[in-house]
């Protein structure tokens, strides 16, 4: 019997919204402690897929998370006014209370995303885009999740901020054995970090390791235009 543990098994997943099939008949698995990247042009349903996986959208098919799954979710963008009188500490304390996380766990989550505890006193409106995104990752880490769903976590963040975020995610995977589902438009990041890539296209979907999936021909078909990306040297 094959006992390779899956964090997630998805079979024949379809999502229909407003009379339109956004996702149709998706089947894939995500092994534990691996990173699945979801790529594709805007509007193909990448965010819809993540929302369906956490049960926020109605769908058909089968979604089976491993029994011990604890989810952490970082949304693509927040529909929240940044000038509300809320501090970073208010945010984290609320999540910590729900997750029954101790103050030590809050400190650890902040350290994991390289944010200083003094940040807790700052209103969220005063945080930079990169700091706010890292705060959201810290938010997701409370409650000791073993699966992280990241929906374009680096969107709108400057390059140093993006690099810092990528390091954080990579470190979490390496040190905590976290399973990661990552929606990203940055193909270089996908190439470097993902163990497998799920491409959502308007005409077809594909699944495989980055070296196979991120071929010029496949990208041309997926995005309808020639794309190139830079593969960074890891050393």
């Amino acid at each position, binding site marked *: 019997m094959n006992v390779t543990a899956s964090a997630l098994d998805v079979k024949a997943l379809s999502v229909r919204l407003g009379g339109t099939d956004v996702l149709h008949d998706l089947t894939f698995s995500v092994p534990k402690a691996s990173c699945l990247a979801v790529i594709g042009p805007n509007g193909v349903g990448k965010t819809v897929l993540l929302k369906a996986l*956490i049960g*926020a959208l109605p769908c058909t098919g089968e979604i089976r998370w491993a029994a011990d799954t604890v989810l*952490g979710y970082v949304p693509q963008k927040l529909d929240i006014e940044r000038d*509300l*009188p*809320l501090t970073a500490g208010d*945010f984290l304390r*609320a999540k910590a209370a729900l997750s029954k996380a101790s103050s030590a766990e809050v400190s650890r989550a902040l350290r994991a995303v390289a944010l200083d505890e003094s940040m807790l006193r700052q209103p969220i409106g005063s945080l930079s885009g990169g700091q706010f995104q890292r705060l959201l990752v810290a938010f997701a880490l409370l409650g000791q999740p073993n699966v992280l769903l990241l929906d374009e976590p680096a969107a709108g963040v400057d390059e140093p901020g993006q690099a810092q975020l990528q390091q954080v995610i990579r470190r979490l995977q390496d040190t905590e054995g976290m399973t990661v589902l990552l929606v990203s438009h940055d193909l270089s990041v996908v190439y470097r970090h993902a163990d497998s890539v799920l491409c959502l296209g308007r005409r077809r979907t594909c699944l495989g390791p980055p070296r196979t999936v991120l071929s010029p021909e496949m990208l041309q078909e997926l995005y309808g235009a020639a794309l190139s990306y830079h593969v960074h040297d890891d050393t």
Partner: protein
Amino acid sequence: MSTTTLEMLALSVSMAVAAGLIGCLAIMRRMVLAADPLSHVALPGIGVALLLSWHPLAGALLMLLLAAVLVWAIERRTRIAIEAIIGVTFSVALAVGSVITSGEQLIDALLGSPGTLSGWEVGLGLAGPLIVIAFVLRGRDAMVVALVSPEIALTSGVNVKRMDLYFLLAFALTVGLGLRYLGVLLMGSLIIIPAAVARRLARGLNAMFAISVGTAVLSTIAGYYLAARAGLHSGPFIVMIAGGLFFLSLLRRQ
């Protein structure tokens, strides 16, 4: 000060605490303006209650709670913005209410008329704010997380839809509790204005709750005092003082 006045003050202050707290959550959910049209739905409830010889407050509360459930159900099914649903539903309610309520009853309903309170009204007037205060204090963490992202709240074990319903019911209950003192026209103000003051002055969540409650309570006590001296309805005084505090808050640079 007579016992009745003390009783009345205790009831209105506890209502003000509830209004200050629920207003903070409403302003964070961008539905603080909903308090105004929501209070209008009480009017047909008062009208129907008078036609059936019920107590007006019972009709108003029942109609408000039913309306909260209706708004919640429409939002779930249609995904129309909640403010739009409340705006449409309750403008219609105001029109219906003004037709079936008339004369002095209408003026009392619009501006509030504390009058003499029966035993059950005093009980409800104290128990209602306690329910709202307990809901806000217990539910604030879930509300804040859902405010950041309903999806994060979902993955944190929060039943977001149920919480939305409870919030609307608490909101409607708060409006209902204040109708006796402030009336249909002004009750929304005691939810909107203190929260708006707090939003301007506070830097964190606890401070926001404290400033909002403080503003609501101060306006209520001072409004009662001035109204008693002038021998007029307290509602307009309460709202004018809250409004004055809001304009004072504008002096602070952000």
